[in-house]
């Protein structure tokens, strides 16, 4: 039996970051991980592998469609097995990196399934069935989330796949149906579309990527349609027939009318994710949940003293970086510091091409809240760098308080939006105004100049428009 200051269950971005930060603060830390590798969904079957495939498939599509324009004559040939290997190597590098960091910070790891017996006690069941109780003064639940399923549609990870299966399809399906028009469906749909699949996205709501600024979501849909994706919005899959050689889906429109049938080779179910709390023993020790999520107070403590939770298992957006912030905050809180997460400034990115990134509130939210705001917009068609690169799809949109000019939301659809959004997040953490942004010198020629111009546009004085 070992005695730790902190036991973290789960080594996804929330858990491993929490463990490292706690170790930095002088705590003796143990992690419990049921996978053979660290990094959780994000590194193993989520953000990281999907980015490898997005990068590779975009390069493939560029080589086919755009290299010629730049005077590079190539006829790309796809070796899917090699591309998947490229992805797997990238994943391995990353998960090994986490193991290295945990070792470097002298964090003990237990590879097995954790179950909380009570305050300060976690029972680990190893793969061989042996059990060991790990004791810690505080326990952090960082078990993340798993793919949500549609009742009646069974995922076999061959023809009916979740995001996990969609990262390792052995061949490019001729036709693919993506159920769910959220960011995961659009990213993986884009991957297989670029590699030659005919992709149809079926979404129950009337918009893709619900939660994004409406204008941005519309523009994204237009661009993806131009790239060859088909959208069926306000539509529901009512039946999936896998008996034949191809999969047959029955689709009904919310607006009524005749049911439609779609035929495809692979169906990707990407309707969202659900918190992973099964088998943790939470009910036995009385940890409170609402709608499947662990309830925590402002210090991330559950209703049971000494048991904390962070990341996808608690309220808020299911994002790796949100979990990381919470991991750092809870470690600092345990060390007696004022750890805190500013939920107003959590960026989110859709890694399609172009990327979509946003931070803060959308125009729809501001309208709902009755906030008086100003808008500034700037299209990449007027940005010099985007022009020469011929990546002019998209725009930057900035929303600021009408009176104080404080930036309330920034939404970018365009090349490298995910990287550019950081500038806006820093500004917002400091409570900056659009004028602060407009008066900050931006290097030329860069894509970021579009952000500065959008800030100027709030004051109706963009230079390049």
């Amino acid at each position, binding site marked *: 039996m070992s005695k730790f200051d902190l036991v973290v269950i789960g080594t996804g971005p929330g858990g491993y970051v929490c463990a490292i930060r706690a170790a930095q603060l002088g705590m003796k830390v143990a992690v419990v991980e049921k996978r053979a590798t660290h990094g959780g969904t994000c590194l193993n079957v989520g953000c990281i592998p999907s980015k490898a495939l997005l990068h590779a498939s975009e390069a493939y599509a560029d080589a086919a469609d755009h290299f010629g324009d730049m005077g590079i004559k190539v006829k790309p040939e796809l070796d899917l097995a090699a591309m998947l290997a490229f992805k797997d190597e990238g994943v391995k590098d990353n998960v090994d990196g986490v193991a290295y960091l945990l070792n470097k910070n002298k964090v003990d790891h237990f590879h097995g399934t954790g179950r909380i017996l009570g305050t300060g006690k976690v029972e680990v069941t190893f793969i061989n069935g042996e059990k060991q109780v790990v004791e810690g*003064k505080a326990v952090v639940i960082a078990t993340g989330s798993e793919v949500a399923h549609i009742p009646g549609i069974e995922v076999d990870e061959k023809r009916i796949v979740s995001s996990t299966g969609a990262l390792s399809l052995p061949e490019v399906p001729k036709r693919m149906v993506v159920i769910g028009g959220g960011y995961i469906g659009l990213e993986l749909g884009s991957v297989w579309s670029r590699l030659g699949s005919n992709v149809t996205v079926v979404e129950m709501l009337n918009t893709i990527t619900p939660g994004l600024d409406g204008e941005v979501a519309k523009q994204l849909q237009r661009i993806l349609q131009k790239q060859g994706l088909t959208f069926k919005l306000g539509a529901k899959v009512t039946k999936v027939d896998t008996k034949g050689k191809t999969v047959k889906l029955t689709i009904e429109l919310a607006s009524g009318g005749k049911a439609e049938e779609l035929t495809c080779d692979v169906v990707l179910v990407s309707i969202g994710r659900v918190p992973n709390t099964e088998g943790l023993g939470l009910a036995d020790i009385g940890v409170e949940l609402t709608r499947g999520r662990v309830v925590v*107070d402002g210090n991330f403590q559950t*209703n049971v*003293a*000494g048991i904390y939770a962070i990341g996808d298992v608690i309220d808020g957006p299911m994002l790796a970086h949100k979990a990381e912030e919470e991991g750092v905050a809870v470690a600092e*809180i345990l060390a007696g510091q004022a750890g*805190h997460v500013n939920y107003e400034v959590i960026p989110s990115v859709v890694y399609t091409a172009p990327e979509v990134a946003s931070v803060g509130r959308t125009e729809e939210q501001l309208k709902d809240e009755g906030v008086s705001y100003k808008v500034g917009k700037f299209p990449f068609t007027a940005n010099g760098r985007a022009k020469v690169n011929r990546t002019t799809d998209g725009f930057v949109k900035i929303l600021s308080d009408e009176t104080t000019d404080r930036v309330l939301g920034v939404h970018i659809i365009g090349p490298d939006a995910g990287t550019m959004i950081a500038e806006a997040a820093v500004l917002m953490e400091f409570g900056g105004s659009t004028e602060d942004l407009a008066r900050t010198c931006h290097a030329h020629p860069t894509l970021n100049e579009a952000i500065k111009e959008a800030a100027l546009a709030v004051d109706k004085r963009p230079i390049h428009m």
Partner: protein
Amino acid sequence: MATEIRVPALGESVVEATVGQWFKEVGDAVAVDEPLVELETDKVTVEVPAPVSGVLSDITVNPGDTVEVGAVLGAIADGDGKSAAPATKTKPAKPAPATTKAEAPAPLPDVELKALEREPYIREEIEPDAMPPSPAARKLLAETGLAPGDIAGSGRRGQVLKGDVIAGTAKALLTRKKAPKPAPAPRAPVAQSDEKREERVRMTRLRQTIAKRLKEAQDNAAMLTTFNDVDMSAILKIRKEYREAFEKRHGVKLGFMGFFVKACVHALKEIPAVNAEIDGQDIVYKNYYHVGVAVGTERGLVVPVVRNADELSLAEIEEQIADFGARARDGKLGLEEMQGGTFTISNGGIYGSMLSTPILNAPQSGILGMHRIEERPVVRDGQIVARPMMYLALSYDHRMVDGKEAVTFLVNVKESLENPARLVLDL
């Protein structure tokens, strides 16, 4: 579209309140300005009115919760309440740290992690239109217990930056915080048989504030009390003679307080040190006379202030005090009505007190204690006679008020009361 119900500004120096009764339930129709919920602050109970008409769609705080100014209490949705389906009463998903610790389960006996020993840090709420401190500065501020206003910001538009907090902490801590207070010693154990017969009651916010203020006054001022007695014959005679005429003319009873307020203002004008306060190296003499009148209520003592008492007639003073008394009992006094006093009168006589030493109402420099009126033998012209007598007590801050001044003040009050003509003639 829902409109949030927020904690309104509660007056100077009041940052939080305890949630009282909700008058409406989720699903009820509400009209604009209709009271929705009670908030108990340090000083008064305020009712939060509906900001708009509609249907109460959400209640996010429960009675007993502590809320800060600006915090969300609930929401009002559009509609008339008939068709709207009542939303379920939700608990706040992420309540402010201050509210969540109230019923935290007992910490582990063997845990040494600091977080489990201490109350969570409270991050100062930043006005939405104010320039917030930088992220690192905000964390430092929370950890040092300072407010953004304590530090001069050097960033754009006066923003408080990390360096400002580091530079300002030492200085600000000297003025704001003394050495960290040792935790109060736990109560000595009580025999089990006795413990069963004890009752444990959480102090109300008003009681906690009273306790804190009184102790602060004792800790800060060099407080002592001087006594005198006053023959109330003249005042009683006037009251007896003019009671009916006065009430008929002014619609308010002729009490004692009006005379005392007048007498005190008269004496304060003579001895300005009793109407002063210390500010750092300076003494501030206030050449205005806002006299606080302590009123006992069921919930504790409150001190509404008769403003510019020197400019008011006796009837006007009586009228205000009667109004204060009635509203104090209902907890309806406004916060601003209890702020800004320069001198205080406390009447323990109504409860039968013979003699007492009142505690200063900081930062004021004087407080007059009134006591019961009693027929006592006194010597007048060589004869022992019975006269209606009252003991007077003046507690004062010896840092600004000299003994001679204090005694002179009290003698002046005594003389005015014994010869009310002096008040009329301004002698």
